[in-house]
């Protein structure tokens, strides 16, 4: 069964949230989801760009009270 993991990268600047995502995505199974919490504005465009480039799947990108919630599914 697919799992969901939250990566709290709030307070770190580019490319910290992306690097946290990449380090963690290596540790989970295909189909699992990772939700990155980021206060770095660039994350909302940089992370989807990376996800699309390397072949994973974007699930959602939302912003709540200055925090971006970026959900990615490991696809390979």
């Amino acid at each position, binding site marked *: 069964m697919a799992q969901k993991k939250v990566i709290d990268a709030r307070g770190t600047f580019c*490319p910290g949230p992306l690097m946290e995502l990449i380090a963690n995505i290596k540790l989970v199974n295909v189909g699992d989801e990772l939700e990155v919490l980021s206060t770095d504005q660039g994350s909302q465009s940089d992370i989807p760009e990376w996800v699309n480039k390397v072949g994973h799947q974007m699930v959602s990108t939302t912003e709540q009270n200055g925090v971006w919630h970026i959900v990615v599914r490991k696809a390979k």
Partner: protein
Amino acid sequence: MRLSKMSIMVISGSLERLQMAAMVASVGAVSGNKVMVFVSMNALPYFIKGHGAHAPIEGDFGKIMEGKNVPPFMELFEKAVELGNAKIYPCSMAMDVLSAKPGDLEPYLAEPLGLTKFLSDAAGSQAWTF
């Protein structure tokens, strides 16, 4: 995924340039590019074990950056290697000038490389200098 080759020459010892070089290297490498970093001149001492990573700032931005939670440039260079398989080559000339041996360097660095070989390997790639 489109793969391309990136060659990054780092010679500055300033915080802003080392930070940007490390950002380009790490993000480039984890995005599927073949990344080669050539480290020489004022940049090389940071890769010698025990040197420390306190780099002088160039301007106001560097001063502001020091007070923020920005990923340290040495950590980003290491992640470029660990997560993106980047190669970081110390310049053999700079090694000689500093009387440094390969064992003096951080363990994630590749073997020392001469400029001629680096330029040959960098042919046809994106080239970045810091």
